[in-house]
């Protein structure tokens, strides 16, 4: 593929404030005319990335090219991009006409051409005859239309949209989504759209970039991202899903919830731990029968408009979410079937916590910036570098942060059917992964404790 195919080339962009890394080696290549959505939860770095593209922020390292030209150090007013802001950012002292004409007036475009282009832009966003209105008198949706007109009138090569619909109500949001998609087709401009709304991303985009913790998790078409999520984060973030621990027994056979299932995945090796993802709509539920693949009891059943959302508890203690057009009563015995092609098997990113550590003496090791007591090691040299493994289930979390050996905050919670898999960020900025059946909330400050016998030391 030739270089000229890409309108935007972001190479190895990193951004950090003081000791906090917001973007970690992000690379992204966008084709001309594409509708790209950067999707992620708040704080994942998506807005920072957009600001770097617009020129309002600078990357700590990395290179940005637009249409082949290096614009890494070009100030925002000289970049061939325009932005639609989340809070509209219209100029309150100017009327609709002057807001839209702002960019053209700066470029000293002739007055009659400005007139014509403003009228055309207003028509494009469905706001004909609003020229002389005070922008403060417009509704949120109308203000956002003016903001879009103000950006596209400059005929940018790339239009950046920073959660443009987040402040609108649901109905208006749906309408605007369709209009944006039409606009994208008509204008032929490359759109880079930032949102935390996965449904919006699936509806609008040609390509979705899923981000988390400053890193790109997956880039792909909406169908790819939905059907073939690369890891449990993407699976959890895009749509609803059941994510379970499993083991690839051999090619095309995966074991989870205590039984073996046929699947279509190959090449994982034998007896490899994996994550299994099953979409709630892919589980077929029926009244109890002997021909089901597994059984369960309905725990809850909620009507969601088109379908019912049910949780089913299996005899060996797994909760499975199921969506179906038919409702089953709470307490009813049911049986389930899953098609082999609907079982998505993913490599586990890790099977236990692994830390870089340093021996202090025969019974102490330093990990996560703190001394931990460990089982006695023979012939220890002080300061010896070691690798330390701690199983997910062996990390204790305490309410009272003073009770722990380290303090951390809960960053990400994944429900795995019968337990929670938490990502806890320590004060030093290291991640520790914890399996627990206790319920914690996102952002909880917790004490972290590890028993000496659970610290497994691997020495070179």
């Amino acid at each position, binding site marked *: 593929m030739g270089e000229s195919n890409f309108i935007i080339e972001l190479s190895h962009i990193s951004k950090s404030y003081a000791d906090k890394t917001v973007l970690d080696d992000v690379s992204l290549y966008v084709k001309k005319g594409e509708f790209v959505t950067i999707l992620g939860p708040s704080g994942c770095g998506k807005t920072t990335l957009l600001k770097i593209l*617009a*020129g*309002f922020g600078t990357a700590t390292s990395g290179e940005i090219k637009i249409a082949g030209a290096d614009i890494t150090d070009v*100030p*925002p*007013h*000289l970049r061939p*991009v*325009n*932005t639609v*802001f*989340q*809070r*509209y*950012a*219209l*100029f*309150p*002292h100017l009327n609709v006409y002057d807001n839209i004409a*702002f*960019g053209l007036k*700066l*470029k000293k475009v002739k007055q009659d051409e400005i007139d014509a282009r403003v009228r055309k832009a207003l028509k494009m966003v469905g706001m004909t005859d609003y020229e002389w209105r005070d922008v*403060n008198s417009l509704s949120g949706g109308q203000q956002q239309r003016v903001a879009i007109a*103000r*950006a596209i009138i*400059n005929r940018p090569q790339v239009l950046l949209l920073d959660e443009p619909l987040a402040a609108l109500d649901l109905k208006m949001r749906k309408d605007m989504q369709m209009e944006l998609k039409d606009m994208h087709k008509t204008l032929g401009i490359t759109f880079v759209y930032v949102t935390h709304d996965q449904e919006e991303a699936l509806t609008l985009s040609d390509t979705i970039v899923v981000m988390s913790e400053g890193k790109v998790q997956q880039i792909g078409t909406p169908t790819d991202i939905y059907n073939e999520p690369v890891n449990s984060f993407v699976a959890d973030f895009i749509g609803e899903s059941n994510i379970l621990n499993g083991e690839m027994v051999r090619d095309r056979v995966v074991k989870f919830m205590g039984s073996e299932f046929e699947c279509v995945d190959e090449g994982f090796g034998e007896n490899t731990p994996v994550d299994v993802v099953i979409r709630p709509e892919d589980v077929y539920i029926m009244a109890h029968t002997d021909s089901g693949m597994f059984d369960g009891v309905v725990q809850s059943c909620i009507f969601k408009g088109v379908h019912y959302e049910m949780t089913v508890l299996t005899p060996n203690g797994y909760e499975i979410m199921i969506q179906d057009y038919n409702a089953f009563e709470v307490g009813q015995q049911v049986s389930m079937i899953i098609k082999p092609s609907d079982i998505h098997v993913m490599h586990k990113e890790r099977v236990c916590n692994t830390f870089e550590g340093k021996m202090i003496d025969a019974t102490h090791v330093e990990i996560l910036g703190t001394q931990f007591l460990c089982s006695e090691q023979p012939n220890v040299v002080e300061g010896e570098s070691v690798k330390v493994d701690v199983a997910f289930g062996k990390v204790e979390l305490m309410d009272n942060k003073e009770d722990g050996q380290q303090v951390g905050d809960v960053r990400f919670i994944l429900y795995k059917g019968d337990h929670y898999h938490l990502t806890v960020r320590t004060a030093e900025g290291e991640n520790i992964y914890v399996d627990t059946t206790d319920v914690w909330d996102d952002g909880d400050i917790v004490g972290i404790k590890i028993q000496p016998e659970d610290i497994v030391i691997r020495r070179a």
Partner: protein
Amino acid sequence: MKRFFAQAYLWLLLAILYAPILIIAIFSFTEAKVLGNWTGFSTKLYTSLFTGGVHHSLLSAIENTLIIAIVAAAISTVLGSIAAIGIHNLRGHKRIVMNTLNNIPMLNPDIITGISLFLLFVSVGITQGFATVILAHVIFCTPYVVLCVLPRLQQMNSDIYEAALDLGATPMQAIYKVLIPEIKPGMISGFILAFTLSIDDFAVTIFTIGTGGLETLSTYIYADARKGGLTPELRPLSTIIFVTVLVLLITINVRSQRANKKKKALGK
């Protein structure tokens, strides 16, 4: 009954507050040399105030006062607005420090400001006169302008500056075309406030005016009173100043009320 006493108390308070100025205003419409003698209604003092002659020095004092007030208010409006933009863009800790540093000169007694400026000018060797008075007034007016402009900046959608850059404005153009129109009401209020503070000031002025014969209204009245008895023309003058300040104050209040109403209308 309770209501009656509440009302009476209010009126009593207002009467005590405004009695002095009312007496001056009433006695400005009579010719008597000594305050307190009523010798019939006359506007002679008003006409003689502006016909010069004997009162040439009073008129030049008024002129000096106005020039100093306008120049000082203009300079402090510019400096204060720039400072406010700077403070607004600071984050966290630094912003609190700068805000406090800005507030201290306002709480500092004028007499201290006056003495310290006097000492500064003398030690640096600046000849005292017009320039030093203006400089001194700029110094104590600027923090008030900052205080008027900051709330406007806080109300502003912080994205609009970036939006202007995004649409092709250079940083300077963005400030002129977007930022200044947004904070203009605050700048106007700040200017009016600085103007009245400057007209009003005595303590700082007396220490920075020097011995070159320069007089402002406040120093003139002070000298006049010390010479024995106030010049009768000061009565109409005080009245005029009071009415002017009153009008300015009402203007500021009406402006801010209108802004509030507009904000409320937008809020719904």
